[in-house]
């Protein structure tokens, strides 16, 4: 299928999304997705696709997951009316508080669901990657809870800038392996986690943390993260008495955004906005704005948009936020961009920091640097259009960012932005 979609194809693909027919059996979201994996992993991926579908449809799995989400994760997470931000921005602002979920971010929804799945599949060990460390912490906690040992790969650059999370993972019993190869951030950590799994495809379970990778991961992660949007949609109707005019989420790989957006896809009047990391600016290598500036390519097992050079080499990226610092993006986001259902834009490091500070001062909430990008995008929207009602995905809390934030507190911003 061509990447340039006709109006009829766009309508048909949205219809297929709304009726749960995407991804198709090949793992395709229209022209994107698929399963580009080494042969060693193909039997394991095929088995995962079948078993995950069976388990997610199995009432006993859903019951077990729901008990854990309620009693251990603390769901449903709150929907908070941001009174002071609403006054300042001239629009009603609601925050979906994934920062209040156990371990401090939305990542736990997926980590817990997949850890339960891994146990049901009889896995002997769990392998994971992490960028900001939130997925690593969530995986370490979930594996401790379900009783499977886990190993987490983390880029050496991220080990340094997210030091508190490294200690937390180790405290929770995970083995943390710093990755020095490649760009030493999330991309290199995923490469290394795949290498580990290629060496142990039968006993190991790869617990991928974002809506990326070969089929079935983009689908599986979305299904486990949809709880965010389901809850938020119900809470908006009961607390605000209506659906929002617009919904904002930050996008790195795109798991919190797909989870928040998905239940709103059929609400044609609700505008959906994904905010990527604009980093230091628009030059190649200066940002992580894959959907805004990327081109079609294959990385980490799926065909999606990608930041790459003219030779198909994947480009290094920059963002102040480790969780958004990734050259690829989930294939379903590429499709949502292609059919025009979600608008993607970017916010720079400076805009995100500014929004983070405003949220701290006005609401008494320290958001993660990732989530601050969603706040920055929402603020820009509000500046152009008053008296609306908006929903912002506050995907995680900012405690893990304190090493970066403390450095900035004491220095000139332009110098210190990593």
């Amino acid at each position: 299928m061509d990447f340039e979609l006709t109006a009829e194809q766009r309508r048909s693909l949205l219809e297929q999304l709304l009726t749960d027919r995407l991804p198709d059996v090949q793992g395709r979201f229209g022209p994107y997705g698929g399963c580009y994996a080494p042969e060693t992993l193909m039997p394991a991926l095929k088995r995962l696709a079948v078993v995950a579908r069976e388990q997610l449809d199995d009432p006993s799995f859903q019951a077990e997951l729901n008990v854990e989400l309620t009693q251990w994760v603390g769901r449903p997470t709150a929907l908070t009316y941001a009174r002071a931000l609403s006054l300042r921005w001239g629009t009603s602002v609601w925050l979906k508080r994934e920062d209040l979920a156990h371990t401090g971010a939305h990542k736990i929804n997926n980590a817990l669901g997949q850890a339960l799945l891994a146990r049901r599949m009889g896995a002997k060990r769990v392998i994971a990657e992490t960028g900001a460390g939130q997925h690593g912490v969530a995986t370490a906690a979930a594996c401790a809870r379900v009783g499977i040992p886990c190993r987490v790969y983390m880029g050496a650059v991220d080990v340094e800038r997210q030091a508190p999370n490294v200690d937390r993972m180790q405290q929770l019993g995970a083995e943390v392996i710093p990755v020095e190869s490649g760009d030493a951030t999330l991309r290199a950590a995923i490469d290394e986690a795949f290498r580990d799994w290629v060496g142990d495809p039968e006993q190991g379970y790869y617990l991928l943390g974002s809506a990326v990778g070969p089929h079935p991961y983009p689908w599986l992660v979305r299904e486990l993260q949809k709880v965010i949007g389901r809850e938020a949609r119900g809470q908006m109707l009961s607390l605000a008495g209506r659906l929002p005019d617009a919904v904002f989420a930050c996008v790195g790989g795109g798991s919190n955004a797909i989870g928040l957006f998905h239940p709103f896809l059929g609400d044609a009047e609700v505008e959906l906005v994904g905010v990527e990391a604009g980093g230091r600016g628009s030059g190649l290598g200066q940002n992580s704005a894959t959907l805004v500036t990327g081109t079609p390519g294959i990385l980490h097992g799926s065909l999606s948009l990608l930041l790459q050079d003219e030779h198909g080499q994947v480009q290094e990226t920059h963002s102040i936020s480790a969780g958004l610092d990734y050259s690829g993006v989930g294939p379903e986001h590429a499709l949502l961009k292609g059919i025009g259902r979600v608008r993607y834009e970017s916010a720079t490091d400076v805009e995100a920091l500014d929004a983070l500070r405003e949220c701290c001062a006005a609401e008494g909430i320290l958001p993660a640097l990732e989530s601050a990008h969603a706040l920055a995008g929402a603020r820009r929207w509000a500046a152009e259009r008053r008296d609306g009602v908006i929903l912002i995905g506050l995907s995680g809390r900012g405690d893990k960012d304190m090493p970066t934030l403390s450095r900035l507190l004491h220095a000139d911003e332009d110098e210190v932005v990593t």
Partner: protein
Amino acid sequence: MSAQPGHEQVTAAIRAAGEQGRPALLPFVTAGYPDPAGFIELLSAVSAAGDVVEVGVPFSDPMADGVTIQRASRAAIEAGVSLRWILEQLQAVRAAGHRFAPLVLMSYLNPLYSYGYRRLATDAAAAGVGAFIVPDLPLEEGAEFRATLAAEGLGQVQLVTPTTDARRLEAICAASSGFVYAVTTTGVTGGSSGLPADLAAYLDRVRAVSPLPVCAGFGIRDAEQVRLVGEHADGAIVGSALVEALERGDDAKAFVESLRA
């Protein structure tokens, strides 16, 4: 110029070794490593000692490779090596009348995808490439790629691994061109823990269903291992051990010849 399709030349070179009563030797080099200026000279040396040469296209995210080839790949990219550069170099020496042993290009999918399959097929055929090995393009995703290559007489060498079950093995072998690449072990390239104990049974299983020669690769490091593998396969692929020899500054031709000892 021979009208024989490129992938058949690869097959023929491997069968010719078998007719001489020895396993074919398939040395692997990362293109442009250790030095882009010495690429053609190195290829000539390795080609003189091997039956088929695997040329690696460096990629930023070599997820099926171990540390040795990761390092070589990164160094080559930093030295400016790209797929376009590789094909231009090969076309230039071919135009000057130079011939190598049949060449197989080993590349992750994205550089090939970015180049464009149609242009790739034309340019690779003109460069004397006979087939491609693409570790992240499994059978299910490769139909368009294989069809585009076939128009120029090129083929895709399919990989099988110890995790591939019987039904899948048959389908993969049937779709392969040139030869069937039997990955000896689960894991990435460059392992040094020795060959697995059940290797013989595995290779016999692949050979029994493959209409093409079967060449084994991953973790084959010396003449003894080439000999062992040769008892149950038609050829042996030696990659990381050769790249390590290049890292040490050893003579490439002498190293490849030592694998026949």
